[in-house]
C-alpha cells in the first residue's frame, strides 16, 4: 500500500482510538482518585490525571498495525514501542509517587536505550551547509542523551491546559512535512499516527481542560518525538523546531541551579490574578521560564499564553524547515 495513503489511514485510526479511550481513562482515573488540581483556575477544580496514556496506547496500537499491514522491518517498530512503553511506565511511577528529580532523567535515558540497542539509527548526521558527518562513536551517546532531554523538556513545557498537546501537535506536523520533503514516506507513518493521537487528545486537554496528560503522557509523547526524530534522521531540523521547549527547560534548570522538584522551588514564576488572568512575578529569585517571558509584557488568560506557545513552536518549526532546505543536496 502507498505509504502516504497508509499514513492518512493511521492518522484517522490513532485519532479515533485516542478520542474514544481518553474519556474512558478519565472516568477510570477519577474513580481511582487519580486527579490533580488545576491551579490556574479560580475554583481550583480536580481534573483526572495520567490521561495522556491514551496517546501512548494509541501509538503502540498504530505501530503494531503498521508492522502487520505493511510488513516493514520489525526492529524500528519494536524500538519505538519499547521506548514509549518504558517512558510511560516511568511517567506512571512519577505520577503515583514523585520520583527524585535527579533520577527521572536517568530513567528516561533507559527509555531511549532500545533505539540504540536495536541499532535503529544512522550515525551519519546531516548538518546545514556542511553535508553529512560521520559520528560513529559519539552518536549512540548523543541519541540516549537527546531523547532523555527532549522527553523531560516536553514534560517541563506543560504548565497550562493544552500546552503539551498543542505544541507537540505542531512538532508532529513539522516532522511529517520534513520527512515528506526528504521523500522518506515510510518514516512518515508513525509521526502521522502521533499527530492524529495528539489532536484528539488536545480536544479534551485544551482550555478549560477536562483531562491532564500527566507525566505518563508527557514523557511518552517526548520519547516518541525523540525516537521518531532519530529514526527519521531529521535531528537538526527537529532540534530547531524544539527551540521553545529546549530553551524553557534550560532557563528553568539554570535559574533554579539544577534538577529540582516543583515543591523544592519556593518562588513561583507566575501567579493567578483575581480576574482569572495570569501574570509574571517580579521576584528576582523566581525561576525564568518561557511562560514568565511571555507574561513579562503583561497578564494574559491561560488560553492566550498557550496560543503564544503554539505560535512560537510553529515559528521555530518554520526555521527548522529553512534549516532543512540548507541541508538538501
Amino acid at each position, binding site marked *: 500500500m502507498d505509504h502516504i495513503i497508509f499514513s492518512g489511514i493511521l492518522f484517522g485510526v490513532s485519532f479515533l482510538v485516542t478520542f474514544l479511550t481518553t474519556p474512558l481513562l478519565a472516568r477510570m482515573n477519577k474513580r481511582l482518585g487519580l486527579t490533580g488540581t488545576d491551579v490556574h483556575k479560580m475554583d481550583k477544580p480536580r481534573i483526572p490525571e495520567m490521561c495522556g496514556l491514551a496517546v501512548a496506547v494509541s501509538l503502540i496500537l498504530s505501530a503494531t498495525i503498521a508492522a502487520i499491514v505493511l510488513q516493514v522491518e520489525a526492529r524500528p517498530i519494536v524500538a519505538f514501542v519499547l521506548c514509549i512503553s518504558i517512558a510511560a511506565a516511568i511517567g506512571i511511577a512519577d505520577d503515583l509517587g514523585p520520583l527524585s528529580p535527579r533520577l527521572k532523567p536517568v530513567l528516561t535515558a533507559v527509555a531511549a536505550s532500545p533505539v540504540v540497542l536495536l541499532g535503529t539509527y544512522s550515525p551519519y548526521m546531516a*548538518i*546545514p*551547509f*556542511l553535508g553529512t*558527518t560521520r559520528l560513529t562513536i559519539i552518536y549512540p551517546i548523543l541519541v540516549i542523551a537527546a531523547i532523555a532531554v527532549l522527553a523531560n523538556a516536553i514534560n517541563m513545557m506543560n504548565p497550562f491546559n493544552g500546552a503539551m498537546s498543542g505544541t507537540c501537535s505542531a512538532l508532529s506536523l513539522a516532522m511529517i512535512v520534513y520527512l515528506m520533503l526528504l521523500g522518506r514516506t515510510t518514516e512518515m507513518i508513525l509521526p502521522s499516527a502521533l499527530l492524529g493521537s495528539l489532536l484528539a487528545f488536545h480536544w479534551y486537554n485544551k482550555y478549560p481542560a477536562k483531562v491532564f496528560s500527566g507525566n505518563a503522557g508527557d514523557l511518552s509523547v517526548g520519547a516518541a518525538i525523540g525516537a521518531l526524530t532519530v529514526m527519521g534522521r531529521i535531528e*537538526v531540523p527537529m*532540534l*530547531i523546531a524544539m*527551540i*521553545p521547549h529546549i*530553551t524553557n527547560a*534550560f*532557563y528553568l534548570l*539554570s535559574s533554579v541551579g539544577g534538577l529540582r522538584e516543583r515543591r523544592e522551588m519556593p518562588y513561583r514564576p507566575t501567579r493567578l490574578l483575581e480576574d482569572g488572568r495570569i501574570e*509574571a512575578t*517580579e521576584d528576582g529569585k523566581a525561576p*525564568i521560564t518561557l511562560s*514568565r*517571558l*511571555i507574561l*513579562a*509584557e*503583561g497578564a*494574559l488568560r491561560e488560553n*492566550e499564553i498557550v*496560543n*503564544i506557545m503554539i*505560535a*512560537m513552536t510553529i*515559528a*521555530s518549526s518554520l*526555521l527548522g524547515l529553512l*534549516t532543512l532546505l*540548507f541541508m538538501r543536496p
Partner: protein
Amino acid sequence: MTLMPSRLASLIALIFFVWLSIVFGLFIVFRVIFEISLPWQSSLTPTIVAVLRVVLSAVVGVTWLLAWWKLANVYLWRKLKTHE
C-alpha cells in the same frame, strides 16, 4: 485567537537569535574545530587533537548557553520594568 503581534514578534526574535546561534555554532564546530590538526606528528598527536576538539566544541556549547541565558535575563527584566 488573541496573539498580540508585538509580544509575539519579540518572542520570535528570541527564537531567531537562538536559531542563528545554533546554525553558526554547528558551522564553527564541524567546519573549524573538527578540521583542527597539529603541525607535528607523534604517538600522542591523535589523542591531543581529539581532546582539543571536544574541549573547543564544549566551549562553543557553553558560549551558546550563556548567550541564551543573558538574552533571556535582559529581555525579562527590561519588559517587566517597562510594564511596571
